[in-house]
């Protein structure tokens, strides 16, 4: 009986095997040489990411570790979701070990964002993209852990840690999923109207006007404070601009350049604008204010700042309230400034003597004259130098000769050289952006400071290599321009070898690599290797920072913001981007030479990320 059973089983098995043989199997596709190469590179990329994620948990730099774990999880989620979720959860827990102090104490009056909150955004972004339930779990933990109101808030900080993360996620998802962005922003209103709410509203409106209107209406219902009114007012009347009051009652402003040229929402939503202005009147411009305490004074100043930014809108959208608001504001100004006088006349003689129909050019000339005179008359020697710097910086970039003349009056060799070099640098970048390449090239040798001169050469090289709109340009001319670009970049490489290593010199070197990689990959790899040595010497560098070098004047923090920075990308990613497809192994090998383990790990992940991005289509085809 037992034998019979075994026989039946064997028969069944052999039949089954036979049947399988009868079904024609799809012929496995023979991979091409290129596909085999890509597949092998993919294994290398996956291994680079996995190795980094495993090492990251032991890094001393917890910030870098969290970023690496989140990036690794995102990159390999499709390969191994379980492992990626574990990395992400590990990263989320590790955030507790990161400092909560503001990133930049000097900016704490404006923004008080800590590394901790930025890392929460990084992890939540991946979680929302890959596993919504996991993301909701993280948000809940955050709400349970953090107090509702943020302490030591900067003027442009969000209301709470929760609202900060919800709005950050909303901004990230608005492009791909406006409904999700709406829902996240709506949830943020539980803690009040936060600074980033304005950004979300503006971005949401680009995708879905109705959703943006609904969100605005919800916010208007709970409008309670002047800072909240500034956010809704900015959205309605001046996209990208938000005004606020600093701790001493002065007006401060933040601008989002990506939104500043959008048409005012109020033009297409006059009723909403009217409703907002009425609400602002009832809440802020119709109630008596007592100025006998510092708090009362600060509140009065913030109302004054709000009124200055929205008063002109009453004429168009709520004309019936113009007079009452005007009366209220006149009283408020009298209280705030009992000895009110025109200070412009004292400080700016030429400017205040101009006729009302003066041209823009006349106003500019008068302003510079006044600033220069003020510097001439200053008796304090340091204040005098600062006043000349201020006057020189206020000249227009193309008016560099005037700026240079003013800077020439600075009675300090180092300072004078720094300011003149900066004025020429700013002018040369302006001329590059205006396609006046020859003028920029003429100015470059006059710039004594190496890094500024190098950035000009990189910008000129980039301009020379731009595809020409005029297709009739002869090949000989194109070759000549390529040759000029090569010479310029070669100069940069040589000069950087003699320069002290700094954050800016590393960025400049990466910028030169980015341009060089477009037409001479061997030389670009060579420069990349030189840059890695510079990074090793510096011991620290943010491989993810693509911003242009900050080459402003030492004594003017805002000077670098007045520069028309070249749109090149001065980060590691930019430098490597044009090398990945052709020289993946070499780049991976150069990255291994980064001596700081955290930097090496981040370098690996960034290289792998670019590999996956560049070969997305091919990898999808192979996996099919």
């Amino acid at each position: 009986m037992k034998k019979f059973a075994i026989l039946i089983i064997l028969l069944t098995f052999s039949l089954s095997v036979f049947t399988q043989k009868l079904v024609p199997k799809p012929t496995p596709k023979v991979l091409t040489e290129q596909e085999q190469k890509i597949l092998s590179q993919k294994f290398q990329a996956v291994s680079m990411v996995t190795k980094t994620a495993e090492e990251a948990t032991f890094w001393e730099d917890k910030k870098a570790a969290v970023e690496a774990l989140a990036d690794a999880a995102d990159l390999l989620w499709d390969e191994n979701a379980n492992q990626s979720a574990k990395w992400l959860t590990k990263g989320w827990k590790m955030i507790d070990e990161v400092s909560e102090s503001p990133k930049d104490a000097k900016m704490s009056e404006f923004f008080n964002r800590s590394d901790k909150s930025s890392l929460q955004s990084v992890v939540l972004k991946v979680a929302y993209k890959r596993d919504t339930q996991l993301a909701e779990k993280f948000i809940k933990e955050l709400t349970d852990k953090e107090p509702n109101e943020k302490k030591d808030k900067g003027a442009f900080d969000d209301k709470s840690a929760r609202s900060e993360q919800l709005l950050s996620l909303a901004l990230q998802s608005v492009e791909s999923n406006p409904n999700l962005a709406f829902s996240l922003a709506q949830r943020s209103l539980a803690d009040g109207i936060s600074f980033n709410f304005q950004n979300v509203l503006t971005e949401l409106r680009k995708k879905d006007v109705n959703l943006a209107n609904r969100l605005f209406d919800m916010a208007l219902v709970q409008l309670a404070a002047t800072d909240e009114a500034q956010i809704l007012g900015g959205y309605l009347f001046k996209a990208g601009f938000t005004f606020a009051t600093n701790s001493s009652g002065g007006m401060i402003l933040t601008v989002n350049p990506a939104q500043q040229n959008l048409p005012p929402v109020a033009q297409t939503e006059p009723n909403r604008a009217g409703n907002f202005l009425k609400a602002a009147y009832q809440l802020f411009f119709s109630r008596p204010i007592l100025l006998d305490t510092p708090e009362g004074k600060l509140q009065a100043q913030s109302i004054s700042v709000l009124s200055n930014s929205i008063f002109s809108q009453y004429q168009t959208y709520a004309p019936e309230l113009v007079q009452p608001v005007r009366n209220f504001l006149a009283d408020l100004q009298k209280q705030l400034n009992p000895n009110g006088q025109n200070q412009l006349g004292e400080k700016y003689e030429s400017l205040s003597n101009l006729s009302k129909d003066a041209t823009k050019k006349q106003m500019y000339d008068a302003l510079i004259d006044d600033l220069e005179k003020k510097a001439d008359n200053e008796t304090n020697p340091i204040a005098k130098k600062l006043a000349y710097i201020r006057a020189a910086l206020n000249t227009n970039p193309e008016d560099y000769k005037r700026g240079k003349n003013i800077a020439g009056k600075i009675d300090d060799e180092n300072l004078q050289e720094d300011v003149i070099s900066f004025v020429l640098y700013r002018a040369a970048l302006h001329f590059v952006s205006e396609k006046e390449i020859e003028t920029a090239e003429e100015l470059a040798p006059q710039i004594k400071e190496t890094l500024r001169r190098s950035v000009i050469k990189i910008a000129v090289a980039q301009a020379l290599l731009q595809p020409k709109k005029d297709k009739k340009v002869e090949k000989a001319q194109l070759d000549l321009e390529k040759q000029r670009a090569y010479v310029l970049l070669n100069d940069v490489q040589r000069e950087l070898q003699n320069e002290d290593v700094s954050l800016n010199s590393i960025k400049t070197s990466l910028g030169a690599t980015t341009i060089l990689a477009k037409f001479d990959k061997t030389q670009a790899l060579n420069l990349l290797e030189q840059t890695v040595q510079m990074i090793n010497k510096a011991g620290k560098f943010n491989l993810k920072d693509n911003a242009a070098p900050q080459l402003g004047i030492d004594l003017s923090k805002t000077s670098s913001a007045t520069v028309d920075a070249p749109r090149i990308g001065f980060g590691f990613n930019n430098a490597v981007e044009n090398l990945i497809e052709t020289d993946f192994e070499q780049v991976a090998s150069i990255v291994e030479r980064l001596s700081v383990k955290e930097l090496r790990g981040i370098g690996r992940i960034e290289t792998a990320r670019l590999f996956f991005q560049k070969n997305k289509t091919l990898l999808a085809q192979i996996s099919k």
Partner: protein
Amino acid sequence: MKRTHFISLLILAFALNNFSQVRKENTNSSLENAKIKITLLDLPGTNLEKSKWELAYEIRIITDKELFAAMTNGKLDLDADHKIGEFVAKNSIVKTSLANKENREVILTIPLDQKIRAKLVADLENLTQFNAVKDKVTPELLSARQMKTQSFIMYGNILVYDAKLKKNIIVSFDWVLPFTRFSHLPGVNFEMTFEIKEDGDFSKKVVLPARTGNSKTITVKQ
């Protein structure tokens, strides 16, 4: 009558007691001048020839009342158009060869004219009187004392060129130096120190002598 006389005597005794204290301070030669020691403790390019520092300052006198009003109005700043208080002195100094420690130190001697000395004496007198009754102090007394309190205010900039960092660094300050701490440090009345760090950041510190005992240090880090 007897009672009134007794109180008058008490007041006279109290005043004489305090007057003698103030007179003692007044005869002290330190009252003829205010001495402020400023030290650049360290900078990365100390030993490099091109490194240098420059100090430009202005000293004024203000009452606490003015100071409070300026602080709440946001007017306490280094802008020449906003400077508050009564002018006392201003000057500037440039020092090079910083490897030599002496060139990283400067003692400012600010001559105090009769008017300022009288203010100083009046403030010290007022403090002594206040201290005598401080166990029975009322909010009104405290407020009156605060309104009479006077201070030096020192506006200034230190401009450093560090040849190692190849960088110009400016350190601005507006320090309030209370009259009441004026005569408690031997040799100098107030002391300030500055330091430039390897990354180009800086620290600044003013050392205010305590009323009694050890000096109290207030550190301001930017």
